[in-house]
Every structure is written in structure tokens, then in C-alpha cells.
């Protein structure tokens, strides 16, 4: 294979193909969906950010107990202020902020039973600010040594969630679905359209005078991978998704796209017309995307089915890259994707050999 020719073909396709409305739409829709999910779907595991505007010592038992009491639900940021008035003002200005003014020797005073302080809670307080304010009141009550009528100890019970949706949160899971959709569109629609357009225009025959079929296909795969990588980059940059391994996440999507491209090219050659690919890709994508829900759900028989399919395997890898707590396997999905990749390109080779003969 000649790298100069591949580079030349790649450059032309990269600039030229994006002017094709079908290709542009195939890339924009999944990206827009991923960003929409990330922005609009609340994450049940997400802690609410609350600011505690603190006048008094930064380190005290009172503050540590408040932080401990709210740690599962509130992401508490302690911001020192210079006076009780400043704490008051901070709380007035922001519904996510509460103000607290404590004496400089608060811990000694608490021990002596003579502590006092001021808590400023905005009237339009957010739910997070309410939780933090309640925690401060609870800690103060304990400090005053006034026991609650009912003192509850909280214990987490049952198995840890086996459902990746629950561990990842809906927004991240739907984000994975959107990126799998993107990889599917690239592999089953964009790359085949790039090739079939050349067939329809007759330019493939002209290209074959100077480049080999393998060089032409590698260039088109590279274009597809570039679109995929750029689209993933845009998606992650535009959405507040917190991923454990961005590289693993993107690599899984790219691997899926290549694995599907072999089938996509074979499918494209069989249909022989970019308009028909455009029509049928939507139909083909539906069964291709459903395994994502199988592997992220907790229904074991369906999960097994999903794991055997390339999109399911890629979704497992992406879930693992997003949050290792989902405890998805890595080796088996990699082998599944590799097997589908080999099968796809073997099918393509067989079709090309038949056409050549």
C-alpha cells in the first residue's frame, strides 16, 4: 500500500464528503442527541453543589460534622468570608449558598457548652442549600447536647446495583447509546456512501487506474474514523460528562465503527446506490443499536445476547471506560469486536472478488 496515495485520497474525501448533506446529518444527529441527553437528563447519582460561606475558623469539628452529614447528597464547598455580614450577603445573592458565622474558638466554646453562631439561609434556597442548612441545624443540636426524639442510624442494605444504567446514571448511559449510534452511522452509512458514490460517479474506475482497491478503502475508513473522532470530541467537549477514561471510551467507539464498516461496505456494494443505503441504513441501525440497552440493563439472558453483538460489546467497553464501578468485562468485548471486524471484511473481500471475476 502506498501511503502518499492513501493520504491524497483521504484529504480529498475528508474535505469533499462533509459537503454531502446526508453525511453531515448522519454525524450531527447522534452528536446533538448525546449533548441533549448530557445537558437535559438529570443524573440521580450526581451530588448537588452547595457553597458554605463561612465566617470563622476554616477547620472546626462543627464544619467537619456538617460536611460528613451531607457528603452523600451535597457537594459542599466551604468559602471563607471575613464577617457575618459577608456570609449573610453571600447567602442572599445565591440560592445555592448558605452563610454560617461561628466564633473563632467555636470548638472550645462547644466543649464548654456556651457556643453560639448565625446561620443565613436564602428564602429562595435550592434543595441542596436546604439539605446543608438542615445538616448544620442537626449538628448544632447535637453540639448543644439536645438529643433527638428519634435518632436513626443509616445502613445501606441489599446488593450493589447490577444495572449499568443505575451505576452510570441515565445521562451517561444515553450518551453511550448516542455514541454507538454515531459509530453505527459512520460504519454503516457514511463510509459505504463514500465508496458507493465513487461507484455511481464512475470515479472508482478512474481511481483504480492509479490506486489499489485496498488503498481506496483504507482512505475511506480513515475519513470515517476522523469524522467519528472529531464528533466524539465535540460531544465530550460540549457535554458535562465525567468519564474515567476518555481514551478508552473513544477507542471503543472507533473500534466499533471499523468493525461495522466491513459490513457497511459489503451492504453498500450489494445495494449499489447511495440513496438506497440512506434509506436502509435507518432500518439496519435499529437492531444494531438495541443491544446497547441489553448490555446496560440487568436482564441476564438479553445481556448475553447483547454481549455477542459488536454494538453491545462496544457499549460494555464504553461503560467500563466511563465508570469502572460498572464492573463490565474488557477482554471478551474486545474479542467480540475483533471477530465481527474480521467477519465484516471477509464478507467484503468475498463480494469484491466476485465482482472482479
Amino acid at each position: 500500500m502506498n501511503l502518499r496515495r492513501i493520504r491524497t485520497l483521504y484529504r480529498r474525501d475528508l474535505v469533499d464528503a462533509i459537503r454531502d448533506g446526508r453525511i453531515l446529518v448522519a454525524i450531527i444527529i447522534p452528536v446533538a442527541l448525546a449533548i441533549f441527553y448530557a445537558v437535559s437528563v438529570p443524573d440521580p447519582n450526581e451530588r448537588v453543589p452547595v457553597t458554605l460561606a463561612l465566617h470563622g475558623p476554616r477547620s472546626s469539628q462543627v464544619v467537619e460534622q456538617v460536611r460528613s452529614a451531607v457528603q452523600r447528597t451535597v457537594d459542599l464547598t466551604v468559602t471563607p468570608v471575613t464577617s457575618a455580614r459577608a456570609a449573610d450577603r453571600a447567602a442572599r445573592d445565591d440560592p445555592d449558598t448558605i452563610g454560617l458565622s461561628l466564633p473563632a474558638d467555636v470548638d472550645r466554646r462547644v466543649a464548654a457548652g456556651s457556643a453560639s453562631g448565625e446561620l443565613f439561609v436564602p428564602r429562595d434556597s435550592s434543595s441542596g442549600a436546604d439539605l446543608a442548612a438542615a445538616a448544620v441545624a442537626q449538628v448544632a443540636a447535637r453540639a448543644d447536647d439536645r438529643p433527638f426524639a428519634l435518632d436513626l442510624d443509616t445502613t445501606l442494605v441489599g446488593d450493589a446495583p447490577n444495572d449499568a444504567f443505575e451505576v452510570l446514571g441515565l445521562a451517561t448511559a444515553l450518551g453511550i447509546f448516542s455514541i454507538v449510534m454515531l459509530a453505527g452511522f459512520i460504519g454503516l452509512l457514511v463510509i459505504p456512501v463514500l465508496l458507493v458514490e465513487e461507484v455511481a460517479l464512475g470515479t472508482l474506475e478512474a481511481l483504480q487506474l492509479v490506486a489499489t482497491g485496498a488503498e481506496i478503502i483504507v482512505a475511506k475508513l480513515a475519513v470515517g474514523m476522523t469524522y467519528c473522532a472529531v464528533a466524539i470530541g465535540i460531544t465530550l467537549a460540549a457535554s458535562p460528562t465525567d468519564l474515567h477514561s476518555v481514551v478508552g471510551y473513544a477507542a471503543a467507539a472507533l473500534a466499533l465503527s471499523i468493525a461495522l464498516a466491513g459490513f457497511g461496505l459489503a451492504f453498500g456494494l450489494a445495494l449499489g446506490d447511495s440513496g438506497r443505503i440512506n434509506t436502509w441504513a435507518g432500518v439496519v441501525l435499529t437492531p444494531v443499536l438495541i443491544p446497547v440497552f441489553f448490555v446496560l440493563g440487568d436482564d441476564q439472558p438479553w445481556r448475553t445476547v447483547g454481549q455477542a453483538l459488536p454494538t453491545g460489546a462496544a457499549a460494555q467497553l464504553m461503560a467500563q471506560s466511563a465508570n469502572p464501578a460498572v464492573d463490565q468485562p474488557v477482554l471478551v468485548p474486545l474479542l467480540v469486536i475483533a471477530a465481527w471486524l474480521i467477519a465484516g471484511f471477509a464478507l467484503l473481500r468475498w463480494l469484491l472478488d466476485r465482482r472482479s471475476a
Partner: protein
Amino acid sequence: MGYASCMTPPAPDAAILTRDLRKHYGEVRAVDGVDLEIARGECFGLLGHNGAGKSTTIRMLTCRTDPTSGGGSVLGHDVVSDRPSIRPRINLVGDRQNLHPRLTGRATLRFWADLYGTDASRVDELLLLVGLDPDLSRPMKDYSTGMRQRVIIARSLINAPEVLFLDEPTRGLDPASSRTLRGIVHDLVEQGTTVFLTTHDMAEADELCDRIAFMSEGRIVALGTPRALRLDHAGDRVEADVTLADGSEHRVRLDRADDRARLEAWSVSGDLRTVHTREPTLADVFVAVAGRPLDAGAVT
């Protein structure tokens, strides 16, 4: 018999050589045992009906499809096993206008120059050669048919090919574009390029080609120089268009005794005003060897 074993060593000066070249699609024998030997610097014409096997022959010689049996070589290299040696040294003007529609003419030629790894400075020179403005910034989809064909011709010259295949290059072109193309081909042949031309235009073949082969149903049915073909296959069919003193017009065949007698009688009586002889054309030769006119369509 295997493909390789069918080959005989090519003549040292042969640009194109085929031996018993065949391409079958199931029961259809698109090319059915073609033997050709075309010298370097020769302009060779292959004429025949649609479906006669001309384009399939070109597809095999330009390394785009494998022969079913038999074999061929271009510039001394085997068309199946040594394609990388052939591809950079040949080029093709196909029978359809295969261009990327969103590129401009110049961008198109730059792209192909980069693909061939040739000097991009030739781009403007080639555009001027085919009569196009290098500064034209319109995409190819807005070009006329004639302009697109000129770009295709410029593209086919981007790698300075030693062998140029032209598959019906003037089909659908206006007379001016056809004339430009014929001028370019003439110059290329003078400069030593081997040209392999298929066409339906007998006059074009007669004007450009050193030798012509007629193809019918996958086989070569006649081969020679245009003059030799006329002499061999329609030489005795000389006609004369006659105008008499009363204004009537007649066509007589000089190979027929009764027509010769009529002509002599008109001459003796003084009725003869004008006589224009008409030599046999390649179209006549084609009818003689293929049994039907070139425009009669494909055999089905």
C-alpha cells in the same frame, strides 16, 4: 490452460500485446479470443457495435478486471501479475464523464497529480492545452458536457502516459470539442504516445488511426490500415454519383457491368454533366465484415 502458460514473449517494441484474450460472464462471451500486437507510438482503433467487447478489452488491458483465460501485456508487463508496473504509465478516457462534481477543474487535476505523484505545475499547462481557463472557480457539476470532457482529457495526460486508452472519447461532444480532442490525439501520437481508441465514429477512426480492428461478438473480424481494409473488404465497390443534362441524378456501381454500360451510354450521348466517384468508407468495410451497419446496435 492457465493464464500464464498462454503467453508468448512480447515483441520488444510492442506497447500492447494480447494472446487469445478472453473474458466470459457465465454464458456470455464478452471477449472471445483476441490477439493484438500494437507497436509503441501507434494509434490503434478498435471499432464495433455496443456490446462487441471493446470496453471489456480495455478494462482488461487497463488492469481493472481479470481475463477469464488467455493474457495480455502492456509495455511489456503482464496485465494481471504486474499491475503496479503498468498503472503509472498508462491512462484512460472512459466512456462516461467520471469526475468528482464538487471539485473545480483545477482542484480535480491537482488531486490526480498528487495521486500520481507528478509535478502539479503541469495542471495549468494541461488546462490551457484542452482550452480551459485555469482560473475557472466553478465546481465541475456546473460545467457543460464539453468542458467536463476537456477536463477528463487533461486528467488523462497528467501522468504523461506512454499508452493512452480512449474509450469513445468524443461521444456526446460538440464538433469543436471533438476537433480539439482529435488535435490533441494527433499531437500525442506524433510525440510517441501509443493510443488505443474505441469509437463509433468511422471518420474519426479513419482520420486518427494507423491501424483499425473491427470487433464483433467478442472477436476481431478484420484488422489492418484503413486503406488496406477498404481495399481488402470493399475495394471492388466503387460508386459514382452522376448528373445528366436533364437534371436527373443517378448512382452507379462501377463493379457492375450493366451500370458501366449505362455510364458509357450517357457519355457517348453527351447527356453526362457531372461524375463524382465515391470510394468505399470504413462503414462499408464494417458492413462487409460484420454483416450489418455499425449503428444497427448490439447483437442480443
